[in-house]
């Protein structure tokens, strides 16, 4: 018997918004930006030594902190229950990895810092955020191209539905590292080719089994009704519309609905914060949550991320039972 899964909290760090309400307001007003305001880790991570965390890890830890607070999922609950974490990312900490190799070349491999080496694995941000917040459940980093953030949420929802775990923080993050910016420009991608400029953000939501969320008295903001993911026949310069339609249809079928009241596309996120890569789908989910909260007539939302790299993922969310 698969369990029903709900979302009980959300947190984000982005150039234009630090709360779901401001994110949706920015989407409505067209206010945009691709570079984070000077990010102050002390706001969310104050009082403890942040030095072991590189910038991406700090962004993820900060977004996770905000999501956990929003969900009222406190340290005592996390200590008593193995809450997990799933993070979608495209480039991981590529800047940190380049810097580690650069330093080994410059000063010699015998002098690089073992502390820095810990951050060269592709799951460093997920591991650091788990340590920071005491998240002892399953810890996964998910790489599915531009759909990574949504795929991470889909992965977490399935793990909870299966009964393997009761709660997970899930979402996505990528940063505008100098290396990623240069790579995208040199490859003729992004705004160099008239496309979407590279942005940066981290967005996380708290997913829980409906029964355990209710048992701890958490407020469920939305239910995950259906999901699907897949690959395009041939990745190319543009999005494969047939893949978009296929994953959306499959997610709607699983949700048992013929259509939805609102759709949040990746393009809606691109328009305000640029292409935030792994964070994109998670920002869409956060926008969907806020839409469900703020607009009483919206009972179902389709979130779909299909990108030119050939990955596609869709999730259908619904208003929680009993909400009107």
């Amino acid at each position, binding site marked *: 018997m698969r369990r029903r899964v709900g979302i009980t909290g959300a947190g984000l760090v982005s150039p234009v918004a630090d709360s779901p309400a401001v994110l949706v307001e920015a989407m409505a007003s067209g206010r945009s930006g691709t570079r984070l305001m000077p990010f102050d880790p002390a706001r969310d991570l104050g009082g403890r030594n942040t030095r072991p965390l590189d910038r991406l890890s700090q962004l993820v830890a900060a977004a996770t902190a905000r999501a956990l607070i929003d969900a009222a999922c406190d340290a005592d609950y996390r200590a008593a229950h193995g809450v997990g974490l799933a993070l979608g990312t495209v480039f991981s900490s590529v800047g940190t990895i380049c810097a580690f190799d650069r330093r080994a070349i410059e000063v010699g491999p015998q002098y690089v810092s*073992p502390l820095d080496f810990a951050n*060269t*694995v592709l799951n460093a941000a997920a591991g650091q955020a*788990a340590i920071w917040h005491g998240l002892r459940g399953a810890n996964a980093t998910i790489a599915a191209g531009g759909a990574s953030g949504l795929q991470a949420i889909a992965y977490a929802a399935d793990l909870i*539905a299966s009964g393997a775990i009761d709660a997970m923080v899930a979402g996505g993050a990528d940063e505008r590292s100098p290396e990623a910016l240069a790579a995208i420009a040199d490859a003729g991608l992004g705004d160099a080719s008239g496309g979407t400029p590279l942005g940066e953000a981290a967005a996380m939501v708290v997913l829980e089994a409906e029964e355990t969320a209710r048992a701890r008295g958490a407020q469920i903001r939305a239910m995950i009704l259906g999901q699907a993911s897949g690959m395009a026949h041939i990745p190319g310069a543009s999005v494969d519309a047939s893949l978009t339609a296929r994953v959306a249809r499959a997610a709607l079928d699983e949700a048992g609905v013929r259509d939805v009241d609102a759709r949040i596309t990746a393009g809606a996120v691109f328009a305000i914060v640029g292409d935030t890569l792994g964070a994109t789908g998670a920002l869409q989910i956060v926008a969907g949550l806020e839409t469900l909260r703020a607009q009483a007539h919206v009972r179902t939302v389709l979130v779909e991320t299909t990108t030119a790299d050939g990955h596609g993922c869709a999730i259908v969310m619904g208003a929680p039972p009993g909400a009107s």
Partner: protein
Amino acid sequence: MIDREPVVVTGIGLVTALGTGTGAWQNLLDGRCAIGPVRSFDTARHAAHVGAEIANFTPPADAAQFGRATGFALGAARHALADAGLARAEVDALRGGVTIGTTSGEPAFVERLEDSRAAGAASAEASADLAMHYPSHLLAARVARDAGFLGPAMTIPTACAAGNHAIAAAAGLLRSGRADVMLAGGADAFSRITFTGFARLGAIAPEYCQPFDRHRKGMVPGEGAAMLLLERAGHARRRGARIYAEVAGCGLSCDAYHMTGGDPSGDGAVRAMHGALADAGLSPGDVSYVSAHGTGTPVNDRLEAIALTRVFGSGGGGIPASSIKSMIGHAMGAASAIEAVACVLATVHDVVPPTIHYETPDPECSLDCVPNAAREYRVGIAMNNAYGFGGNNASVIFRKWEA
């Protein structure tokens, strides 16, 4: 949950420092050692000098530019599909998926960029390649494309537990009905960055890898890939496939304690093992073989022995628990995928591979590590354990298939 339809293994593909396919399996049973001086870069300024590299690997002709790990993964995936006898017409492409674990993806693209920078200026070509070939999702995407699969595809970079994570994710996608067949496994390439880091941690052994030995001196970095073809038993039966073994249960946990060091209580590893046992509906006493993580570092092996003792009883319950890393080194994210294949074949052939270079018992690791020679006995249940940076723990249990 024992009333659900079993997920089974019907194809395996191995690319290891001891060869491919059944040849690699025989070499593991024979206790051969692939460890030797590092060949792919100069280690003069490193504190360590040995590795377990794959010699003479030729990537598929159309994949040479994708990077070494992708070449390994494509090779292993093609082996697994051929081994499973899966023709493209037999599977709905929309319902075929891929999950691949890795620690570092394709770090050679970072190394080339930094080499060019050190030589004067960052090469625009190397920089462009970082966008075109480095992001780790490409491992899964390229294997999916090669197999003609259009269903769910993702890379799961969860360090040295990644192969098991990928198998667990694939089993989940099959159980939830999101796919009919999954290629699942892991791939990593021998890397200067990885070697440098482990050398600076003081973790690399001077000569060879001797897990659980009292005088063990460290791990040895390696490389490779393994892919398993997984499907539900009914799907396998309908197409007349040979079934190797069942993926009986999976357990995942995180220490949330330290990025590179394990929780000294062994708590995370214990929770992963208990999770896998519960998922499989089994008790510790049912387990007949443990494929240990067994890296060969003094601390890791001691913590693993503590965890095994907590789950199985004193001395790890006397259950044979060997580490093939003593032979092929530590293939990072691929390691637990390769070890998963070893578990599967152990249940098929009723023989388990040894831990080689075992000389002196360690009272702090009082396990039966199958010292130095393979052992034949009935292997009904094999548990594959993997632990990685970030505190990741993943256990997968394979059950002998008796249909």
